[in-house]
């Protein structure tokens, strides 16, 4: 065998090996590959895409939805659903504003000046928002576990009620938070160039992912989602765990509320309408199933980023939001279909 032919043989072997691996890679990580492809597309699609400003914007937006989605992921893993997160994104902060100003007046701090709420206690606000988020989540959980009402119905009802209460409490109009300088960082700030929301999002997602994979928490949740009966017989307190997941979901919604309102410097009773659907879409796209017990937070994080990139590109290209809706809807269907189409042997 001459060196030349030997060289050729090696080369062609390498080539075919490479092709095989690439196909495998695509098949096994469609979301990741799709995301990267999308990103590359974005670079060519619009010059404004790869600017720092745009990337920061992109990341900021998807972090808010992403945080919401992390909470929903945990609930779906345990085979429940939480439709109330969008409404909670408004409700938690609006109620918190009200509570904070009441608490402040109790403590004798000046609350209103010049027609706008002037809440000095940023710390109070953050604390109460998160607390209300937790309690709202617990409320969902109690209805589901103690009153045994299906989560679809429970959270649907809370979706209605929380949204309505937001209107009532706020009097129907936005509350301006422009005076709260310290709050701005959560939504608008950044650390080393990374937008604050992104850091919070990755932090929350990271903690959730860690808990689910390496600790007992994960085992409990996956078990209850996989076979609730098995979990019960293993002595697990399924009700308590369900309560906890709903509380976590409420907490994430509250976190998202803080990020959103901080960035826009206002709390609007109409904010985040429909966000629960987007959150569910992200969760499903990220690989978590409705049946519970299957899925990863890492998938959700990835999906949030991909959707974020997609939305961003669509906006940059100038496609109105209507076209965005259509495209995202189609992508969800396209993404979910192959999963369930796997030929099942009876």
């Amino acid at each position, binding site marked *: 065998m001459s060196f030349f032919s030997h060289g050729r043989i090696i080369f062609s072997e390498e080539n075919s090996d490479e092709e095989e691996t690439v196909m495998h890679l695509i098949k096994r990580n469609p979301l990741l590959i799709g995301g990267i492809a999308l990103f590359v597309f974005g670079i060519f699609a619009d010059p404004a895409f790869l600017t720092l400003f745009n990337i920061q914007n992109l990341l900021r937006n998807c972090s808010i939805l992403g945080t919401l989605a992390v909470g929903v992921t945990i609930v779906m893993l345990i085979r429940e659903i939480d439709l109330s997160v969008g409404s909670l994104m408004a409700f938690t902060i609006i109620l918190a504003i009200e509570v904070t100003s009441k608490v402040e007046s109790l403590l004798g701090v000046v609350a209103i000046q010049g027609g706008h709420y002037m809440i000095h206690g940023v710390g109070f606000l953050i604390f109460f928002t998160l607390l209300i988020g937790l309690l709202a989540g617990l409320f969902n959980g109690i209805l589901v576990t103690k009153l045994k009402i299906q989560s679809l119905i429970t959270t649907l009802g809370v979706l209605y009620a929380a949204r309505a209460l937001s209107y009532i409490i706020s009097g129907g109009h936005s509350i301006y938070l422009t005076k709260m300088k310290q709050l701005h960082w959560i939504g608008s700030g950044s650390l080393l160039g990374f937008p604050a929301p992104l850091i919070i999002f990755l932090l929350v997602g990271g903690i959730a992912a860690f808990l689910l994979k390496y600790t007992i928490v*994960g085992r409990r949740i996956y078990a209850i989602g996989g076979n609730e009966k*098995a979990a019960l*017989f293993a002595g697990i307190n399924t009700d308590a765990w369900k309560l906890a997941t709903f509380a976590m979901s409420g907490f994430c919604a509250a976190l998202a509320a803080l990020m959103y309102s901080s960035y826009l410097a206002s709390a609007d009773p109409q904010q985040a309408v429909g966000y629960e659907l987007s959150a569910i879409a992200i969760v499903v796209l990220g690989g978590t199933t409705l049946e519970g017990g299957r899925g990863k937070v890492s998938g959700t994080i990835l999906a949030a980023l991909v959707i974020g990139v997609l939305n961003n590109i669509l906006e940059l290209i100038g496609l109105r939001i209507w076209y965005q809706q259509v495209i995202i809807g189609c992508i969800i269907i396209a993404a979910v279909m192959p999963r369930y189409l796997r030929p099942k042997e009876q």
Partner: protein
Amino acid sequence: METPPLLQLTHITKSFRGIVALKDMDLQLNEGEVISLVGENGAGKSTLMSIIGGVYTPEKGEIFIKGESVRIENPGVARKHGIGYVHQEPTLAPNMTGTENLFLGQEQTYSWIMADSKSMHLRAREILEEIGISFDPQKMVSEMTMAEKEAVAISKAMLQRPKILILDEVTAPLDQVGVRRLFKIIRKLKRSGIGIIYITHRLRETFEISDKIFVLRDGKKVGIRNPKETSQEEIIKMMVGEEGISNANDDERISKEGRELLRCEGLSHEKSFRNINMRLRANEIIGIAGLKGAGRSRFARALFGLLKVDGGAIHVDGQKVEIKNPLQAMNAGIGYIPGDRQHEGVALIRNVGENLSITTLGFFSYFLGVLKLKVITKRARQMVRNLNVKPPSLKKAVANLSGGNQQKVMIGKWLERDLPILVFDEPTRGVDVKSKAEIHRLLGRLKNQGKGIIVISSDLPELISVSDRILVMNQGSITTECSYNESTEEHILQCLHVDPATH
């Protein structure tokens, strides 16, 4: 001083919504003892065990473990008291590995919440070896065979070194090999002083493995017998409360086989079965025996269009047919009564009448699908009478019937259609003794009406008593055919292991 028994239950009473499930029940279990609990469906066996396992709490009565009075409020408490419970149909989470399931609720941790996967994995392997089954416990439960799942379930119960072990119908999903293995484990556990309560519908097993047989009927204790001093007939009499019912329909055996109804030539399906050749005649019952995974059910489902065959042909009444879905199978004259009654056989929340008539709606309707309700109701009532379904109400939800009656409804659904070829997959699984006998007699009647019947069953005595001949499948091929005279249990047991490759 006498050592107190390992477990003692006194005056246990339990009702559900006003219906008394257990009345004044007494039970005593000693160390190293195996007690078999037998009784018809609804007699209260599982309820009693659930009380010991902490799933239910009794209204009256006391539980003593080693002489100490205890209260078992939930499965966790039961486990702490050294009670291990292996449920009917292993309750495992399919989305987790064997190891994870094994340690569910009793995980080994460090730093309080961190799961110590490595040491759990090691321990899992250890326990599996003790039991005598070796496979990788890191497999996903959803990919495990029934035997492997059983192994995980048993290991799970054994993890905390229980002193009392409850085995609830653990042999139901097992084949002969699995049962032998299980009995080996039970005897080993006995020797180490563990007390075992063993629930089963298979009386022969109780005679083989237990020290005492405890009979329940209608929530009350009927009696305890030593297997060496009693007989199956006596036990059945105690369970049923009347003359023992003969299991066989030998007296009705008229082997006057008719024309060929079904013929399979070289039927194959990639992963399930290969080159199946068989012939079914009218007035004939063919039994198919085999170990779990031999391909019997899959063959049956292929006949019914649930599996796509990739080779061979099916002939019905001499003509080749294409069967791609259940509707085509039914039109060809083939009916399939599945083994999983609850999930595939009946719609539990619908009532008896609806379930019975669903297969024949098309035949009793006017134009546009409007139903001839009077006719349909009449037929359903007739079927309920014929099959002796209790209670004989058409409006009762099937979920509220006992297992045996549910089975009858499922069978009745298919009888309505009056198909010439019927395939029964485990026709008496989870069915009480009386209904079982009724179903066997029914099979005989159907045969004499001219139908061709295939029965798949893991219950060899049942298969032998019902079939005219028996085909044995192993690893996807038919390895032996036993005529009526050759069909003894020993012979068939041997045939079960015949390697198709050497055939």
